[in-house]
């Protein structure tokens, strides 16, 4: 085979990989955007107004932290503000790891490009990028997923916030239970390993025991220590399982 033909075959494979990446990104984007409705409704149920819910989706743009912030505010009110900030920030720590993995993927074209890439660095854009087979497909996967979710998430947040606003007494509609179910949905895909499952159980027990004792908001932060201890010593980790 001549070099030209080899390059041509490579380009064809790459083009196919890019098409797959684009399709993956849009599919994940549409699926994820649907969560925005529940976020918007829960944010309003927690006492935020429609603008505040939309601001979080536009600027914070990382679902776990957004749900955590409104969840802690819902259970503890403004006096738990410090805990709400800490819970949101701690849930954002994983984005640092994603950012490090995505930096070589997204390409470097100046500061604005880099800030945009950081902004769109979330669970889904990282996962789609990492699942692609070529460098160009990974880059396309990252950007398509990020932009698709950004647009969808913000539109559905607004819709959810307006619905929540119209509902009035949200407890009667079971929105407090919906919040717990939403957190479970974020947690579920992370429970594949024994170590993660054990961390989840112990953290839930610690938070429950701490609830009557500590100021609202703090139990969640105390439970975070469970992750530090289990992670530091690699309790129930891979090495011991093997």
């Amino acid at each position: 085979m001549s070099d030209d033909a080899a390059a041509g075959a490579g380009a064809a494979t790459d083009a196919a990989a890019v098409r797959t990446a684009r399709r993956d990104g849009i599919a994940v984007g549409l699926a994820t955007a649907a969560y925005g409705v529940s976020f918007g409704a829960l944010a309003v149920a927690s006492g935020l107004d429609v603008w505040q819910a939309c601001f979080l989706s536009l600027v914070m743009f990382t679902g776990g932290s957004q749900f955590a912030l409104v969840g802690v505010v819902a259970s503890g009110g403004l006096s738990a503000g410090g805990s709400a900030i800490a819970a949101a920030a701690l849930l954002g720590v994983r984005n640092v790891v994603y950012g490090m993995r995505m930096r070589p993927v997204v390409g470097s074209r100046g500061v604005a490009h880099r800030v945009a890439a950081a902004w769109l660095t979330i669970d889904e854009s990282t996962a789609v990028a990492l699942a692609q087979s070529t460098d160009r497909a990974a880059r396309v996967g990252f950007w398509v997923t990020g932009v698709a979710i950004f647009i969808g998430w913000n539109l559905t947040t607004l819709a959810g916030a307006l619905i929540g606003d119209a509902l009035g007494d949200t407890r009667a509609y079971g929105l407090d239970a919906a919040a717990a179910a939403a957190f479970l949905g974020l947690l579920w895909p992370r429970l594949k390993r024994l170590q993660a499952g054990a961390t989840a159980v112990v953290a839930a027990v610690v938070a429950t025991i701490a609830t009557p004792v500590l100021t609202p908001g703090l139990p969640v932060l105390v439970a975070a220590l469970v992750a530090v201890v289990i992670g530091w010593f690699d309790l129930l980790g891979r090495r011991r399982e093997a």
Partner: protein
Amino acid sequence: MTVWHVILVATAATLALKLAGHLVPASFLERERPARIADLLTVALLAALIAVQTLGAGQALTVDARVPALIVAAALYAVRTPFIVVVAVAAAVAAGIRLVA
């Protein structure tokens, strides 16, 4: 502290974390232990939020309509039901129980 203060500070913190990953030299969190702790931190916080959101009523613990709703949600996730459907069904279960009770 107003709601806006909480939102602005938390947003600044989460955005700073996102930027840090793209700007700070990749070394620290590439190591096994910090990466593992960052992973488990997410798991622990979400699990704690579920517990507080399901059983908490201010500083008291109660068992009410939220518990069966969460059990139904877990069963639905186990059979790979889409997120938005599960959340809607959980809300409906809690609302239904409260309507009857």
